[in-house]
């Protein structure tokens, strides 16, 4: 028999008792045909979040999976986990948006389903939120990041796209696409309400909008390990990314991102700023 640690006991409570207080943190995972990977990911996230000793919830935003992803999750019957089922595949951006807008936490993380950025990195992002930032972006390109297994093609594409993003949008964030980002609830609500891109480029749109809304954004280096089995075609996604850049720009020029009364005021009193944490 293995001894029960405090973390394990917290986990058992989390999977058996509905929390009576609102979550401090929500973790959102978009999932499309992840039957092979989703349970280890849920286990890793649950272990770490339960070890933090604060109320939290898990939201899995299905993206029209055609495998057993949804039934695997629903069969767990975890009282503090919500599975948002989608009838059809509409894109990662749409899945994340549904999850983020359903989240009840004061702080909301979205993380990829493959654990390529280990959940332990959450603590580094949370430290920046505690320091007053509205949006904290996990980065594979910031100084101090530990990246392994990234293919040469993906590195070249990333650099090319970064140049386009930097020149075309004036975004200083070195890695807009890492699937590990943390938001305050008000920032998430405003950003994901304005978001129009449903595909993989939604991250770029969010960062662009964060600047437009005057939200303070920090970039934090993270550990990242390539997860084999990705169904993403890097070249195809890059082409779509370029098309989405145009879409975002045109949408903005047409006044599509009109800031309304519900848009947040940054927690910082200074104008919009971007910080790269070394």
């Amino acid at each position, binding site marked *: *028999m293995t*001894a029960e640690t405090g973390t394990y006991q917290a986990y058992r409570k989390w999977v058996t008792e509905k929390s009576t207080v609102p979550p401090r943190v929500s973790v959102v995972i978009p999932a499309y045909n992840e039957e092979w990977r989703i*349970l280890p990911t*849920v*286990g890793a996230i649950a272990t770490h979040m339960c070890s933090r000793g604060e109320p939290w919830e898990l939201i899995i935003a299905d993206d029209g999976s055609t495998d057993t992803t949804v039934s695997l999750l629903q069969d*767990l019957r975890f009282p503090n986990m919500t599975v948002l089922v989608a009838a059809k595949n509409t894109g990662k951006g749409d899945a994340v948006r549904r999850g983020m807008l359903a989240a009840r936490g004061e702080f909301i993380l979205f993380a990829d389903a493959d654990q390529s950025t280990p959940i332990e990195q959450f603590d580094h992002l949370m430290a920046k939120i505690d320091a007053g930032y509205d949006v904290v972006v996990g980065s594979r390109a910031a100084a101090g990041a530990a990246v392994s297994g990234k293919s040469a093609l993906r590195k070249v594409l990333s650099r090319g796209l970064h140049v386009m993003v930097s020149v075309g949008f004036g975004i200083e964030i070195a890695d807009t696409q890492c699937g590990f980002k943390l938001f305050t609830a008000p920032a998430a609500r405003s950003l994901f309400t304005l978001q129009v891109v449903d595909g993989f480029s939604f991250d770029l749109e969010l960062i662009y909008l964060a600047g437009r809304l005057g939200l303070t954004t920090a970039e934090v280096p993270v550990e990242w390990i390539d997860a*084999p089995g990705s169904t993403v075609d890097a070249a195809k996604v890059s082409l779509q990314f370029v098309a989405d850049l145009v879409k975002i720009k045109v949408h903005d020029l047409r006044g599509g991102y009109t800031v309304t009364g519900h848009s947040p005021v940054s927690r910082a009193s200074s104008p919009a700023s971007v910080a790269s944490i070394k």
Partner: protein
Amino acid sequence: MRIRTESGIGHTTVSLAGRFDAHETADFRNVVDLLIRPENATLRLDLSNVVFVDSSALAELLRSQKAAKAIGGEVILVNVSDPVRIILELTELQQVFTLESRTDPTTTTS
């Protein structure tokens, strides 16, 4: 992932540390396949310092267990870390292995 092997009279323990995922299964297999032998078919895997196991790693553990049982032995998981224990439970694979605690030398299946 770091792999360390300790062998004594009648027992062998392999200690793993770090992230056990698809990138690591080949190295794991190379080590373990040499250790599971008819004269010493029971292998202990110390997982106290494993921070994550993915589905490929779980499949590899199952493969090892099957190989050990085929020659009358077994793979015993020792001091399973919290994340590994929870992932084994979620995938209902804890029933396939004997879990052993360092502070409790009696072995049980759970």
